[in-house]
């Protein structure tokens, strides 16, 4: 009798697990991957993944050598793409962004210069565009950028960038209103000799346009395989998919998200207060598209008390627990998986063909160029 009961219980449990939507796209730990970058002087926000044939590479901007370095994940060897041939146009600095498409096409952007270059892997400049147009609404004071929440992407002759108004300081209500009335995602048509502005999209949600601020000045955007843009914001549960002129909205709320209070404007220059506010607030950190599985990942951070119980130390960004919300191509929330900050770091969450890389703490003493990832398998 007992055996039958156990078998029935097991069968029911297995059936429930297979039918439960929570277990779809489950992130199952596969293995750890340790890598050593060629230098400790790299721009952390530039780290990404590309696939050439069957070989995977991590790419990053080496600020010491002013090169884009490609780390072969199979062999551990590093290839370098020199950037010196662009010097006549603009020397690469820390404010340098790029989008690695393939060995023949690497788009480079110099912040504030409004100049975009196309180079190949030898560093040879193949084409350059200067954006001369005003933004819609007659805004001429703006800078091009590709912040890590809104990286530079290319799709079908179009380049997806970020436009940031430079005529505004966000410390007074009139300027705050102007800032949040201006979307940040700029799409350029670069199929011709001139770069033309196609659109400026990703309207800030209503809660950002109600004279309140939340220490969030960079929208989050990823681009899917159809060239559609998915937008998210640090304190908004919704995500917004822009496909042409239509916008699809979906709820992508983390189960632990609590709306933070508005940030007091009189503390705009107080870094002590800003730090405390950011640690104690729940935030959505970024939205990432997985081209290998046609999924989206939304990263949510939970707020924690600023001071440690003994009052001797304060918490840091890395101490915040975080979770990954997995959304399918139709923006259905499939799963939310929590990560323990004692083991994992929110710094890098990178889709690769085998699964999802999540950066991990290294216990032993290590150099800054040593990174550790856990690979999570998402296959059925």
């Amino acid at each position, binding site marked *: 009798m007992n055996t039958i009961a156990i078998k029935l219980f097991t069968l029911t449990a297995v059936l429930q697990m297979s039918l439960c939507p929570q277990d779809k796209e489950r992130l199952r730990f596969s293995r750890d991957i340790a890598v050593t970058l060629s230098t400790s*002087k790299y721009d952390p926000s530039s780290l990404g993944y590309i696939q050439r044939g069957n070989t995977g590479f991590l790419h990053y901007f080496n600020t010491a050598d002013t090169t884009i370095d490609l780390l072969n994940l199979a062999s551990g060897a590093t290839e370098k793409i020199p950037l010196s041939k662009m010097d006549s146009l603009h020397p690469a600095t820390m404010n340098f962004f790029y989008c690695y498409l393939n060995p023949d096409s690497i788009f480079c952007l110099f912040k504030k210069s409004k100049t975009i270059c196309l180079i190949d892997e030898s560093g040879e400049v193949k084409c350059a565009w200067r954006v001369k147009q005003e933004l819609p609404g007659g805004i001429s004071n703006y800078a091009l950028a590709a912040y890590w929440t809104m990286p530079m992407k290319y799709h079908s002759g179009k380049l997806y960038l970020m436009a940031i108004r430079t005529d505004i300081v966000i410390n007074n209500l009139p300027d705050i209103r102007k800032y949040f009335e201006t979307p940040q995602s700029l799409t350029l048509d670069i199929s011709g000799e001139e770069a033309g502005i196609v659109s400026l999209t990703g309207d800030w949600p209503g809660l950002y346009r109600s004279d309140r601020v939340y220490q969030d000045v960079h929208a989050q955007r990823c681009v899917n395989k159809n060239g559609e843009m998915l937008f998210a914001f640090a304190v908004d549960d919704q995500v917004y998919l822009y496909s042409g002129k239509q916008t699809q909205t979906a709820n992508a709320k983390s189960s632990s998200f609590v709306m933070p209070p508005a940030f007091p404007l009189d503390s705009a*220059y*107080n*870094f*002590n207060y*800003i*730090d405390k506010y950011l640690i104690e607030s729940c935030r959505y950190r970024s939205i990432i598209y997985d081209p290998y599985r046609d999924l989206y990942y939304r990263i949510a951070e939970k707020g924690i008390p600023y*001071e*440690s119980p003994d*009052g*001797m*130390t*304060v918490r*840091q960004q890395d101490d915040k627990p975080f979770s990954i919300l997995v959304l399918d191509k139709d923006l259905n929330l499939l799963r939310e998986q929590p990560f323990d900050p004692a083991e994992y770091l929110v710094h890098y969450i990178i889709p690769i063909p085998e699964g999802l890389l999540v950066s991990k703490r290294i216990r032993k003493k290590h150099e800054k160029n040593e990174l550790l990832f856990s690979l999570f398998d998402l296959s059925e």
Partner: protein
Amino acid sequence: MKYLLPLILACYMACTGSAPSNKQTDIFSNYLGTEFGLSIPADMHHYILIPKMTCKGCVNGKLQDELPFLQEEVRAGRLTLITSNLQVLDEPLKQKLGFLTDTQGRLDRLNLRIRNMAVVRTKDHRVSSITSVQTDDTTRLSLLIK
């Protein structure tokens, strides 16, 4: 009888000469000791702290504005500069001022309200004040250090 215990405690403290404990002193002296093997001196001393969360332009500008004064204070052994963010500092400043570098970033965890930049004044082995220098602060460093 009820005054006896406080009286004994007061007498004990007066006899031993130890200063009453102070949380800021505890945090800072513990940090100096474990990170750099230093202790807070008896003579008045100043520390400029530059953590990871800082405004690069503001901090470099403030240090550059009073470089000769700061160099003289360092030479005289009255000023120590500590940073957990060496990359943010301009190369000439690093060379001329000689920063103690906190490679583990323990500075960033101290509960002392030192974001952006802070000036710690010490005397008699104790922290006597911590002035947090924010990005909109126009006070000259020499006024905070004198």
